[in-house]
């Protein structure tokens, strides 16, 4: 494996096309969120739950893959063998927690994988090849780039508040939200300005048809995965 030069995704063993990832992401969240847990859809759910695990392994996020597996395993185990034995409020609470985990975690992990393993230029190239207009792709790519930054900003603000020993002492939730939200909004404005300056330097505003230096191709396994994802969606709607 070589480092440097190309984009962020070169740690990957299996290099998927962004279109494939989007296809899989749609299939997984459709099936995991809306699906039933009985019959043929159960098999679909198992396949969908396994895909992010395998893909996370291919980008060598072994730790997060394991955490994901444990979380999912626990919630499925709870749903299957703990919940029928208890009743009342505890049942409801556990049910809700497990329901959220088993429904949203696979989609979330798939989304995380997609964001982590796709560089912005790969995403833009893929969208361009799909003929999505630029006024949709640019906000989208900015957004996906910004989500991790948002998390970082939040953590820094949290740390700064801890250092000054505010945070626990703030009892009023609105004050707390103001303390967190205002700095985040400030940095959002700043980041937006910096990004537009950067894009200006890179000639994003120049107009004309843009070319792409990064190469993305739909390879054989991409085709297989896309067909698989589409087949799963079709099966999901048929049953």
């Amino acid at each position, binding site marked *: 494996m070589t480092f440097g030069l190309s984009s962020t995704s070169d740690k990957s063993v299996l290099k998927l096309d962004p279109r494939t990832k989007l296809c899989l*992401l*749609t299939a997984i*969240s*459709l099936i*995991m*969120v*809306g*699906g*039933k*847990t*009985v019959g043929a859809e159960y098999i679909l759910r198992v396949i969908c739950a396994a895909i992010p695990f395998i893909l996370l392994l291919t980008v060598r996020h072994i730790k997060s893959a394991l955490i994901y597996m444990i979380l999912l395993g626990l919630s499925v185990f709870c749903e299957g063998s703990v*919940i029928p034995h208890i009743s009342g409020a505890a*049942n*409801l609470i556990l*049910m*809700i927690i497990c*329901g*959220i985990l088993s*429904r*949203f975690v696979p*989609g979330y992990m798939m989304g995380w994988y997609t964001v982590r393993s796709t560089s912005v230029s790969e995403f833009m190239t893929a969208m361009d090849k799909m003929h999505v207009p*630029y*006024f*949709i792709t*640019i*906000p*989208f*790519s*900015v*957004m996906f780039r*910004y*989500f991790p930054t*948002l998390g970082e900003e939040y953590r820094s603000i949290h740390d700064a508040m801890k250092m000054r020993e505010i945070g626990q002492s703030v009892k009023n939730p609105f004050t707390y*939200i*103001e303390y967190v*939200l*205002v700095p*985040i*909004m*400030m940095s*959002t*404005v700043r*980041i*937006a300005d910096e*990004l*537009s300056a950067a*894009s*200006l330097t890179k000639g*994003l*505003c120049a107009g004309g048809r843009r070319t792409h230096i990064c190469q993305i191709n739909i390879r054989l396994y991409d085709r297989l995965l896309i067909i698989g994802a589409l087949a799963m969606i079709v099966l999901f709607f048929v049953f």
Partner: protein
Amino acid sequence: MEKKFEIKDLITVGIFTALYFAITFAVACIGFIPIFMVFMPLLVPIFAGIPLMLYFSKIKHFGMVTITSVIIAVLMFITGHPYPVFIFCIGAGLLTETVLKTGHYQSIKSCVIGSSTFSLWLLGMLIAFFFGFREAYLNSLVDGYGQEYVDKMTGYTPTWVFFAMIAMCIIGGLIGGLLGAKVLKKHFRKAGMA
């Protein structure tokens, strides 16, 4: 005020949509507790309205809000909401666009009203509980969450609640917009950022 749509605007759209979506998602997560589901359209706009006001204050051109609403619709669809979310999102986006336009993208009053009209897209997320979608959706919940949960949800969501939710969206959006205006005045106007 220049009319041309720039890349800068698209970046603003992207970044603020991300912020708005993150906050909406965080607040909406408490909607899994059945009773909060009913009040979600009130709670979400209150919190999400604050960054929304900052976003509105940056808007100078027609179309930015519509793009935001399209993006939110796509994200919502990808995360497994039924298709009517598109109609509601884009409808709310266009409505807000008109409201902002009548204020010439400058008046705070129209921003506050815009914040409440924009919140109407939340109904697209919740429509699954009502009208023609109700039976199928609740049935699909039964074996995921259990009969007890579904019974609770059914109890909380008779049809009239839908209309109450419209009112909640509008009121929540107004509160959020006013809060946002206050925050803008307190923190951003002074720093020259809004």
